[in-house]
């Protein structure tokens, strides 16, 4: 059981009674019922951690998987029940207490790592150790009309439900932001019969997450599939309908107005660092953690989208740091934290990987392409396969693979084993990459 103390009782300290539960400060409090929060609880139990675990989230849903929100869930091909991570029975059997709908606004912490977290409801959650799995939130667009009904974001289940509720009546949708979330949602909405326009402020799609060749491939592929993608274009303001409440259009910088009954904004996320800042933890584009997922106080762990960590890829530059937003990172980082919390020091395992499904384009990314100095393209037009291999000083460091799982798997495996795939041989798209993999 968690201990819920009403904060409005100012005299409980002076007159302790049955209403004032003891501040036992036992167990682990995981703030954020996210992919990383769930994995941390699961991994800890697998490692034999037997203290109480509270997995606390600010949403009213049981912990769920986010990736499908912009794809299968939006399109209605999977039900909400399918997104639930674990059954209630699983959590009960593993002595993990789920707390829903509590937003932690302040945390007091002692030097030994124990403390009390205070929720906006007044509830208090004492802990012996603290884990921050607080994720990131959608960056808001600040233009005139941004608060009109129908201007939506897509980060959590309620966002997806709001979008689904509105989508039936909508004919025209403008998606602002040509990143993964925008393109995934745009593809889903197009498939659902909507007239979709994507506005990307930058000169290419998907920002820095992929190289130029991959961005160009996606631009052409989406345009070929009938999606109206406009680069170097931004909204000047959103116009309202006759009632003045709901969005009706998007006015571009050149004065053009695109009709839109839904505007979906996907312009990136901001890591949720407020609690860490309030705790005095080092923060720099996320909560700064060491190789063992420990924050600057040496006791709190911070993992997943909210954490800025040393680049875990073998061979990366010393001192280089990354903040990764992915399911794979949430899982692997949670495992590192679970070891830390059980007194072991284990470094991040595996190669970061990412995926994004947009219409029939299935992108898989292995590794991080930062700092590449050469690319090799593999293109099989007939079978709709396309891969970009990234090299730094002749060593493969990453690959973007579209509908090419064999390439993806070969690169991921080579990176994990510290092997190389020579670029000149890889340029022949008919060659299976795993047959030319060499020990570096």
């Amino acid at each position: 059981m968690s201990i819920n103390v009403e904060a409005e009782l100012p005299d409980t300290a002076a007159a302790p009674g049955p209403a004032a539960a003891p501040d036992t400060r036992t167990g682990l409090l995981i703030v954020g019922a996210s992919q990383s929060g769930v994995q941390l609880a699961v991994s800890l139990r697998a490692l034999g951690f037997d203290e109480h675990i509270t997995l606390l989230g600010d949403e009213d849903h049981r912990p769920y998987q986010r990736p499908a929100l912009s794809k299968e869930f939006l399109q209605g091909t999977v039900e909400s029940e399918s997104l639930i991570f674990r059954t209630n029975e699983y959590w009960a059997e593993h002595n993990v207490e789920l707390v829903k709908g509590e937003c932690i606004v302040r945390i007091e912490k002692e030097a030994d790592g124990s403390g009390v977290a205070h929720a906006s409801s007044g509830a208090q959650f004492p802990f012996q150790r603290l884990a921050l799995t607080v994720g990131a939130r959608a960056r808001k667009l600040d233009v005139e009309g941004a608060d009109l009904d129908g201007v939506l974001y897509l980060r959590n289940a309620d966002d997806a439900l709001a979008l689904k509720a509105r989508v039936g009546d909508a004919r025209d949708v403008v998606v602002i932001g040509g990143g993964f979330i925008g393109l995934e949602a745009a593809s889903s909405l197009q498939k659902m019969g909507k007239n979709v326009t994507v506005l990307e402020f930058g000169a290419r799609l998907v920002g820095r997450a992929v190289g130029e060749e991959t961005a160009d491939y996606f631009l052409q592929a989406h345009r070929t599939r009938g999606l109206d993608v406009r680069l170097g274009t931004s909204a000047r303001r959103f116009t309202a309908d006759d009632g003045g409440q709901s969005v009706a259009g998007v006015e571009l910088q050149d004065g053009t107005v695109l009709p839109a009954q839904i505007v979906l904004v996907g312009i990136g996320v901001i890591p949720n660092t407020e609690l860490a800042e309030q705790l005095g933890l080092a923060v720099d584009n996320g909560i700064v953690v060491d190789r063992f997922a420990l924050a600057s106080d040496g006791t709190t762990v911070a993992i997943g989208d909210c954490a800025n960590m040393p680049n875990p890829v073998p061979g990366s530059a010393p001192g280089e740091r990354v903040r990764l937003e992915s399911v794979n990172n949430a899982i692997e980082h949670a495992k590192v934290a679970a070891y830390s919390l059980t007194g072991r020091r284990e470094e991040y395992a595996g190669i970061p990987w990412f995926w994004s499904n947009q219409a029939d384009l299935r992108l898989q990314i292995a590794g991080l392409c930062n700092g590449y100095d050469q690319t090799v393209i593999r293109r099989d037009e007939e079978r709709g396969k396309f891969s970009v291999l990234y090299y730094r000083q002749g060593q493969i460091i990453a690959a973007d693979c579209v509908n090419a799982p064999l390439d993806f798997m070969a690169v991921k495996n080579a990176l994990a084993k510290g092997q190389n795939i020579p670029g000149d041989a890889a340029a022949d798209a008919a060659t299976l990459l795993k047959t030319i993999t060499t020990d570096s």
Partner: protein
Amino acid sequence: MPTVHFTDAEGAVREVQGNAGDSVMETAVRNGVPGIVAECGGSLSCATCHVFVRDDCASQLPPMEDMEDEMLYGTAVDREDNSRLSCQLRLTDETELFVTTPETQV
């Protein structure tokens, strides 16, 4: 009810009741069957829900599509003739499936 019998690499058996329409992967993950990782949640992107299906159960399975076939070449433990990705196997009311999970998925 549909039932899946999961045998791990050490031979321990876990029997899990599922719901018709769910995948074998979902059934395993939601109930915490340790041998299934399923990072991508069933979107055929990760090949970490690999199972070996007992031969006499093969008739209960849907045919394999190309994407699954290619992904199976990248599993952590090498594929065999009876390998499938369990996210692609849907339960029906009649399902009584026996699968073995590999030693590792990642």
